[in-house]
């Protein structure tokens, strides 16, 4: 075998390999949007390992996509720019027309929002908060704003909403007595209270709602969406997937459907979103 023959044979083998790989995988890259719950860097730190694992397991190449702000992310979602997404804003009325399909949801028990006061606070019921300043993490938060707002509205209580930026900021406002109460995500509050030995008294708790959902754009083929869904849900049981979830402090994924988010849609409707 001379040199030329060796080169031709090498190209031939490489071409065969490429053709085989292309047949086995879907070469298209699917964008995977994530709601801006944390900074973009932390979000990338958390989601990039998950997406890399899902891509390897499902053979569907996923790429993290985010917009600088929640509003811009929601807008892009509304424009259908994300093939997949992890959010619950899709259940707002404005985005129903896009037609995303629920594939899975964040694992763990259904969660809820709470309104708390300091133990020595004179407020005993929601009505005691009438006209009082109450801290909220953000107007885009579901558990700690949308859900608790529904409760306040149902109680006929109007409060002065003070947006603290995030959960810790809302608690800090309460502890600084700049607000009389704070509206928080129940799980995050418990974590904080345990970590900081924070004493509080709960005035109100919302019903339980499912966490954010993994949704697929209608243009994504069912085969692809199912593969991604299976890979996400399979992370809970796979060794490598479980390790990635543990490192990311993520509760995992469970199978879900659009029907499970009816209550969420109703909350958004109740507050006009």
């Amino acid at each position, binding site marked *: 075998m001379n040199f030329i023959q060796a080169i031709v044979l090498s190209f031939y083998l490489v071409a065969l390999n490429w053709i085989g790989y292309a047949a086995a995988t879907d070469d298209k890259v699917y964008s995977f949007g994530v709601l801006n719950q944390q*900074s973009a860097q932390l979000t*990338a730190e958390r989601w*990039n390992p998950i997406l890399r694992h899902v891509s390897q397991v499902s053979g569907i190449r996923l790429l993290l*996509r985010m917009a600088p702000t929640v509003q811009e992310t929601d807008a892009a979602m509304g424009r259908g720019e994300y093939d997949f997404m992890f959010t619950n804003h899709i259940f707002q009325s404005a985005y129903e027309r896009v037609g995303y399909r629920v594939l899975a949801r964040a694992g763990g028990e259904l969660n809820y929002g709470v309104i708390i006061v300091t133990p020595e606070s004179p407020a005993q019921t929601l009505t005691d908060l009438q006209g009082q300043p109450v801290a909220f993490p953000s107007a885009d938060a579901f558990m700690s704003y949308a859900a608790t707002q529904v409760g306040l509205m149902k109680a006929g209580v109007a409060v002065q909403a003070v947006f603290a930026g995030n959960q810790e900021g809302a608690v800090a406002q309460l502890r600084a007595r700049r607000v009389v109460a704070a509206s928080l995500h129940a799980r995050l509050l418990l974590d904080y209270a345990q970590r900081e030995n924070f004493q509080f008294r709960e005035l109100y708790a919302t019903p339980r709602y499912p966490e954010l959902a993994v949704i697929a754009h209608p243009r994504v083929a069912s085969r692809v969406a199912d593969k991604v869904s299976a890979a996400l849900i399979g992370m809970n049981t796979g060794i490598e997937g479980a390790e990635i979830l543990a490192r990311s402090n993520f509760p995992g994924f469970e199978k879900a459907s659009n029907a499970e988010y009816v209550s969420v849609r109703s909350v958004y409707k109740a507050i006009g979103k």
Partner: protein
Amino acid sequence: MSQASNRWSLRYVLIVLSGLSVFLVTLVALSVMVSHETREISQMTEQHTNQMVDLVEPLLVGSLVVGDLATVQQSLRNMVSEGSLSSVIIADPSTNAPILFARSRLKTGDTQTVPTWFGFLAGEPPKPVKRRLAAGGVAYADLIANPSYQRLLSTLWNSTQNMILLAAGMLLTQLALLTWILARGMKPLSNLVLVMRQIGEGDLGAKVPNTRLNEIAQVGDAFNHMVGNVKELMRSLRESEEQHRSALTALIEGVIIVRSDGIIQTYNPAARCMLGLESGQLAGALLRDHCHSEVREDGTPLPVDQHPVWVTLHTGKPVTNFVMGILPTGAAANSTRWLAINSQPLFSEGGAQPHAVVMSISDITERKEIDDRLRLAAAVFHNSHERIIITDASSRIVAVNDAFTEITGFSQTDAIGKNPSFIRSGRHETAFYKTMWDCIHQNGYWRGEIWNRNKFGEIFPEWISISAVKNEREVVTHYISIATNISVIKQAEDRLRHLAHYDALTDLPNRLLLQLRLDHAVERARRQHHRVAVLYMDLDRFKQVNDKYGHEAGDDLLRIISSRFLGRLREEDTLARLGGDEFVVLLEGINQVDNIYNLVNDLIRLAGESVALGDGREASVGVTIGVSLFPDDGKTAEELLSTADTALYKAKNAGRNTYRTFRESQGNADAPAIIPVPMTEKDRHT
């Protein structure tokens, strides 16, 4: 050009060298400091850059994640605007292709112009900081932040300029101080030089004046102390030299020191005397110029290359006890002076070849003569045929010669340490030796005859001369005994004495001995009141035997008859032959006269017995005897012989082969033949 013009001023040399050394030290220190500063500033810059990147990294990663490149660009601009970075680049992590870029735009006056050479001194620019912008294992871009080298150099140059100014100030100050110190310090040194010159010219009393500069003062004190020591040393040296000179002069041995070129460097009077030279002839002259006719110990000429000095100079080894003779030119051969020479090489420190030779000379002429004499004496001692014993003062043998061993059979080992009395024969009484020693002590010598005993128990006579050897204080130190074995002489004397007193034919006492014994017997008998009998005998018919058988047969007959007679006589009796056929018997201590008659009858019977003369010949003779008695027939020996002869004559006349007493011959036949003499009481007891 004079030697002084080649010299450099210590002051200027010190200033220049000090300035140079301070400059070099400063330069090195400056280089080290700049290098250190560069390293430190580079590290600080790198650290600062890292901190800056740490600060912006989350923002950049976040912006990249959400695709907000405007924010990224703005962040880059903000980074370079701070001034410490020259440029910042965002590059594709896989291709390294720049995506975004921001460069610092320094305004004129922001940095100082830095000389090019300083750039070389400052070394390498700080390395860029490269950071991968990634999140969750996904690399979004690479951030490359390049620190501003120009700004770094400018900062360094500013601090270096300050350091240079400081160093220059220090250098100038040090030089000024050094110049001032040297100006003050040189004056005491000049004084020191002045004093050294004075001392060099011989003024050892000069002293370095005191100064307030401690180090110089210490040098001065040390110098003054050294000069004091040198003075003391020189005094000791002079004394030592004087002592050595005196010792050299007083030496009996001659001493000459010869340089390697053969020139005589020094010598002492003894050497001059031994070589027979006048004063002043030796020093500075060549040794060979004063060489006499030199001979070896055996008298053959001594070649120059075998002269001890020459040998030591060329071999570097000492020569000891070399004996040579010198004979001044024209002197008689017997005026040779014998010298014993030792030559010792002198080496310079570290030198392999001697630079001089010390030759010591001893005049051994007299000693050699004594040695020769001693050697001769020893040869005489050992080769002498006379037995020689040398004892110490206590008569203990210290030496014997070979003749002693030959004569006595005792070896030297047997004899050494013993008293010569160990060879005494016992033949001499103590008084003999006492007399001998008295004579030696009185006269210093003794000569005489002594019988000694050899190793085999045989005694022998010696003629001995014993001399006392005295030292210069007249104290006896040794005794020398020289002896000649005179056994042969004694035997000859005995032989002569025998021949004089004995008959040659029968070995019987002759008339002379008979006379002596008869005298003694008479004398003894007179004292002891004994009787002495003389039997005068004449053989009958001897002449016929002689005529018939010849003289030899007659002689045989005489010997046989004599032997028969001796066999009958007592040991103390004497049978003498007076000649021919005449015999005399001397009998002493006679108590019974009858015994005489019995004896006479026996003798007649014995004579009458036949005598075999050989060849079957036989002869028969008789004997006639005349008897005389003391004191009856004579008072002296002559009277007794005479009366006996008279009685013999009568007996012959009476018919031979018989006897007669003198009394009978006087015609008194009736008278008893022997008239008894009254015996003393003493006689009866003997």
